[in-house]
């Protein structure tokens, strides 16, 4: 289990992660979603002690990662598949990682076989394609047979066969009651792999929700209103459930646009937006739209 508590990280005057709190439970794949620049990688780096938080804390199974003597046996991480010396062979790369944690050389051969790289074990990592590099990174994460796994954008650069492989691998690992936190900026990817979603935007938590519940939000409506405080309690009374976005927008589940419009009229609140969300992808885009750091201008 990973527990993230009021985690904050600033780079100069930019707040990359802003008071983030959530828990990653074992036995399921937790998808960590957000647009590029939302703070996913920074959060994962803080979990591993690579970046130091300005405030807040992270514990893994109740302990601080940096304090672990043999962290690979407890936590495996794929952060950036390119974080390898390109002139070292795949096997030597894994061997020097394994040795730091007292993991025997035969385990290196096992994980090479597990990820399907045994035939290129003695090839330089620099000659690998993006997909092979990704597999090498996953092999490194699995070396210590850890209970907790962090994968940052694991499907990047994988071909369809590779994507299918990693999905099955993650499902299998979760099935063994391991804790998995998997980041992605693609909702469609997570919809097929994750059991639970943690969605962030501009470093803040937007949603911490089971995939089932998220999928049921087929009839979601994105609402923006002048006076939320008066409108929201009435929507809840009428049977709607509310999920807050970052910028004053919110998503209503359980009521349709006509019902919401009527309630707004009753309480005299001006609606500035009332958009039915047709798909999962749209619901995600709606929630994060205003927290997208880099956006293409309108054509």
């Amino acid at each position, binding site marked *: 289990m990973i527990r993230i508590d009021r985690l904050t990280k600033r780079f100069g005057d930019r707040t990359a992660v802003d008071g983030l709190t959530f828990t990653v439970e074992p036995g399921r794949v937790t998808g960590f979603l957000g647009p590029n620049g939302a703070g996913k990688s920074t959060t994962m780096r803080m979990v591993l002690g690579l970046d130091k938080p300005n405030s807040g804390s992270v514990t893994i199974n109740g302990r601080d990662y940096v304090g672990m003597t043999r962290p690979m046996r407890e936590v495996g991480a794929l952060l950036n598949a390119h974080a390898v010396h390109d002139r070292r062979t795949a096997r030597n790369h894994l*061997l020097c990682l394994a*040795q730091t944690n007292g993991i025997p050389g035969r385990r290196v051969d096992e994980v090479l076989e597990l990820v399907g790289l045994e035939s290129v074990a003695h090839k330089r990592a620099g000659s690998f394609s993006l997909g092979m590099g990704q597999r090498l990174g996953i092999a490194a994460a699995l070396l210590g047979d850890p209970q907790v796994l962090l994968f940052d954008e694991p499907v990047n650069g994988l071909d369809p066969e590779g994507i299918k492989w990693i999905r099955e691998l993650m499902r299998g690992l979760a099935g063994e009651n391991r804790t998995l936190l998997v980041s992605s900026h693609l909702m469609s990817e997570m919809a097929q792999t994750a059991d639970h979603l943690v969605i962030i935007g501009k470093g803040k938590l937007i949603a911490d929700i089971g995939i089932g519940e998220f999928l049921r939000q087929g009839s979601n409506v994105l609402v923006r209103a002048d006076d939320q405080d008066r409108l929201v309690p009435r929507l809840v009374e009428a049977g709607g459930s509310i999920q807050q976005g970052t910028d004053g927008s919110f998503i209503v589940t359980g009521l349709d646009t006509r019902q919401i419009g009527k309630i707004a009229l009753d309480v005299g609140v001006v609606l500035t937006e009332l958009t039915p969300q047709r798909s999962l992808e749209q619901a995600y885009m709606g929630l994060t739209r205003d927290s997208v750091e880099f956006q293409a201008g309108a054509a």
Partner: protein
Amino acid sequence: MSAAIADTMRSEWTKFRSIPSNLPILLATVTVMVGASALTTSRASENHQAVGAAFDPTYISMYGGFLFAQISVGALGVLVVTSEYATGMIRTSLTVVPRRGRLLAAKVWTFGLIALVTGEVAAFCSFLLGQIMIGAGGASPATLDQPGVLRAVVGMGLVWVLVGLIGVALGCLLRNTMAATTMVTAVNFIIPIIGPRLMPAAVGEWVTTYWPISAGLQVITTAHHPERLAPWTGFGLMTACTAALLMAAFAVFRLRDV
């Protein structure tokens, strides 16, 4: 030494030997030291009579080669750290060894031992070959049982270690291969060797006496100059300066985000 640091050192040795160029460069460095020493020794022994009592066959047989070899020893030390930053490997290394002090300590110990072994081999080979050439040139060669000679030859290997560790420390502080190798070359070669010829006499004299590597190299002399530091005093000064650089490197390495 705890099991964890021993494991990390084993890993650092794997890292070092699995970069294809490292071991050949190390071998080439020893060869350059011995070869260049032989050349400079034969030149020096031609005019040993002009030098008279100041002729130091031990020093002469190692110093010339060391000037060349130390550049690549320092650069290899730099690369132990900067190659990890250049390739991004440092993030992976610190994920598997989150105790930063342990990772850097393992690098320092491992490269220190590599430099010690190769440095002693280079020092003894240069000395022995040099004495044959000095004898052939008609001067009287030194032997290891003469006063100060064994200390000087062993000391040569120890200076290799310090040069290598200055490289590791500067590599860690600067994180960039080009910047750190330039700095190592400036600190150990340009300032002490070329500098005194260009500087005002008083400054040049001070550099020749107190600059860390100039002081440290007193340990390889057997004919002592009264205006310079004593062999172990000089070596102690260089060791202290290297230790200070390493302490700065540890402090910065612990505090920085990767």
